[in-house]
């Protein structure tokens, strides 16, 4: 059981960190870009919101299995398959949580509008300098929301991780899949303990984030 908890925390942490790195530039482009390509990408980005996790998991399993086109690309690096691996789980979780990361960050960039970018540009800051020194600090509450949502969403996911992870103990067995197995084996006491622990953890995480958010809000409007 402890193993499942650790795998879950590791998965949620790695997914959150990597997804923020991917989602921030994407959200920036969606907020500030132009043209119909942007609309199409926005729709694709939101797709995991409406797809059943098992459908998403099914396609991911096909993509990560040996012989798929995606794996053919990775073959030169000595990777044959990512199905039923921790790396595969991370990829699946990132895709599954993508809309939860993109939307708050995109909202934050849209809310600040052009004004800070223009002000910084007239003060000699290049677009990259403006992003790092102005736009990201101003979007920090959106980034925080995105991080929290992705982390919580990853801790709670079930369908995708079961499909592509296979609940292998110590590698891909996470709290949600572990709990499912406990219930299947009629081990209600342990399942109950795990469930209560998850509720407590989620509550504490939310309180912590709200306090942090209020702090950030006080520093700047």
């Amino acid at each position: 059981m402890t193993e499942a908890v650790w795998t879950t925390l590791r998965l949620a942490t790695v997914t959150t960190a990597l997804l923020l790195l991917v989602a921030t530039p994407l959200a920036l482009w969606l907020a500030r870009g132009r043209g119909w390509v942007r609309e199409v990408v926005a729709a694709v980005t939101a797709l995991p919101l409406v797809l059943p996790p098992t459908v998403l998991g099914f396609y991911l399993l096909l993509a990560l299995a040996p012989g798929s086109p995606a794996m053919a690309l990775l073959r030169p690096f000595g990777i044959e398959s990512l199905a039923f691996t921790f790396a595969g789980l991370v990829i699946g979780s990132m895709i599954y949580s993508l809309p939860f990361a993109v939307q708050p960050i995109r909202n934050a960039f849209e809310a600040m509008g052009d004004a800070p970018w223009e002000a910084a540009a007239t003060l000699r800051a290049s677009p990259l300098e403006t992003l790092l020194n102005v736009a990201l600090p101003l979007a920090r509450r959106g980034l925080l929301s995105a991080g929290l949502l992705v982390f919580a969403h990853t801790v709670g996911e079930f369908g995708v991780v079961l499909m592509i992870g296979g609940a292998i103990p110590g590698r891909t067995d996470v709290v949600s899949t572990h709990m499912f197995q406990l219930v299947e084996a009629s081990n209600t006491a342990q399942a109950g303990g795990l469930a209560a622990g998850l509720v407590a953890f989620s509550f504490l995480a939310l309180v912590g984030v709200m306090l942090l958010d209020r702090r950030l809000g006080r520093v700047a409007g």
Partner: protein
Amino acid sequence: MSPAPDPRLELALSGRLGPLALDLRLDLPLAGVSLITGPSGAGKTTLLRCVAGLTRLEGEVSVAGAAWQDRSRFLPPHRRPVGYVFQDARLFPHLSVRRNLGFGAERAGPGPRGALSLEAVAARLGLTPLLDRSTVALSGGERQRVAIGRALLSEPKLLLMDEPTASLDAGARREVIALIGELARDLRMPVLLVSHDPGPVAHLASGHIQLEAGRIKSVSAMDGGGRDPIEGMSEADRDALARAAVLAGLSPLPPGP
């Protein structure tokens, strides 16, 4: 006229922004305060934005002989040595007053005025006691003074001001206008100043550009620089002053322009 060519702002721009068709042609000496007036929607702000590179129309812009925009190039805003004071100040809320002031200076490097230090500018603008405060709780006048200081410290060749006093109350407005006049004179900083109400700023102006419906309606020289105390007074104030002078036994003032 001196034999060396005086630095000038030359622009010829045309294009369409929403409902407004613009055709702006301007050739101005880069000196003193040039007042830009006109009805709202005439293109005053667009003119400033085109000089700063924030808006792109077709055509050419050159400042002191350097082409900022022509057929083959469009210098992005962060490469143009202008200072821009927005109507709404646009201070960075996550930075202190000091870091707002220093934002442009850090990137500009030493400019033609070289010795402009943050502390000196802050002192001049009356911001010294506020330096380590957040910008969020500043008053309107304080915000606009930080915005002006921030623009000056980025060592601009040209200061663009878009209705810098429009959102201020009467007291703060007078104070900021006086400051603009002093800075333009003491630092020899050319200023393009957009104002929908020329009255309070007319006495600073050395030139007056009137816009109408996307075109330059007129360009005229003015006697500004703050030398003549009656310049820029309203007709009513002039009359009142003239009456007071007559009552005091002095000769009446000459009629207004």
